[in-house]
């Protein structure tokens, strides 16, 4: 290039749009599909490991601790306790629920694993670890093979107290 002075340098810009998008196909697999098909019938289907007795909700096909194939699914009544929770107060792009709202890990009675869902019908500042909750299902016409078949969990009004954590 010539060394002659050219036109002045442009004023630097400070930021560029850099969107990131990845289109996937989620494949549930045999085990998760059993659980999801249960949701479309208002059923919470758990499965037990014959090797180590761990009860999974939601259940995969094989035990993540000992890799044994899980036993036949059986239904839980849906009640459980809040193992931990988070009040989401911060808006973010793509958010579908108006903040503030509560997301919790729910430890269902009869299961050894925890399931994440929304807590509703209660003010966020009244949610407590150990609170007993039950599922609120959507209407018949909205039931589908998805977690959205449960609108949220709500307190049963029964105080259970703080549960001990599991290994």
């Amino acid at each position, binding site marked *: 290039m010539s060394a002659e002075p050219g036109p002045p340098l442009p004023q630097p810009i400070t930021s560029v749009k850099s*969107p990131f998008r990845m289109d996937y196909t989620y494949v549930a697999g045999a085990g998760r599909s059993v659980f999801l098909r249960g949701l479309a019938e208002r059923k919470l289907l758990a499965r037990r490991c014959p090797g180590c007795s761990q009860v999974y909700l939601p259940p995969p096909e094989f035990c993540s601790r000992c890799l044994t194939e899980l036993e036949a699914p059986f239904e839980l009544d849906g009640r459980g306790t809040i193992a931990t929770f988070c009040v989401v107060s911060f808006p973010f792009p793509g958010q579908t629920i108006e903040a503030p709202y509560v997301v919790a890990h729910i430890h269902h009675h009869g299961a050894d694993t925890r399931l994440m869902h929304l807590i509703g019908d209660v003010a966020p500042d009244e949610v407590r670890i150990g609170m007993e909750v039950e599922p609120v299902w959507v209407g018949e016409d909205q039931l589908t093979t998805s977690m959205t078949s449960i609108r949220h969990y709500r307190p049963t009004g029964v105080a259970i107290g703080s549960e001990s954590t599991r290994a």
Partner: protein
Amino acid sequence: MTSLSAPYTVEFPFDRTVGPKVGTFLAGLREARLFGVRAPGGRVLCPAVEFDPETAEETGELVELAGEGTVVSWTWVSTREGDPLPHDFAWALVAIDGTDGSFFHAVDVGGDPGRMSTGMRVRVRWREVRVGEIGDIGCFEPVPV
């Protein structure tokens, strides 16, 4: 029993902040001007970077370039959604005249891979609407002989 499946899209609307050298490089694209940046030892890098990848030293002055170069390597691809061209094209490394190293971008030869060759001369084809991002260079195209 067959497995259920469903579409699943992960999307983040990031804004990326840029430093002064990259910011000037991008502002140049908006004006249909191509800049490199001076690195230690007199080398010129394009696209511009804030720090020299070889010595990690801060880069120096911006250097305006003519926007022509030579294809040093390329690979032919079928066009996909989001690609810079609506027909098949080459992704290429272009050694821009007056710079060291190469610049990665698309080369448009009208969908005919027979017109691609290493050593061919190409030039920048600017987008009509430019906003100050790398896509302001729509692609490279062969320099008419």
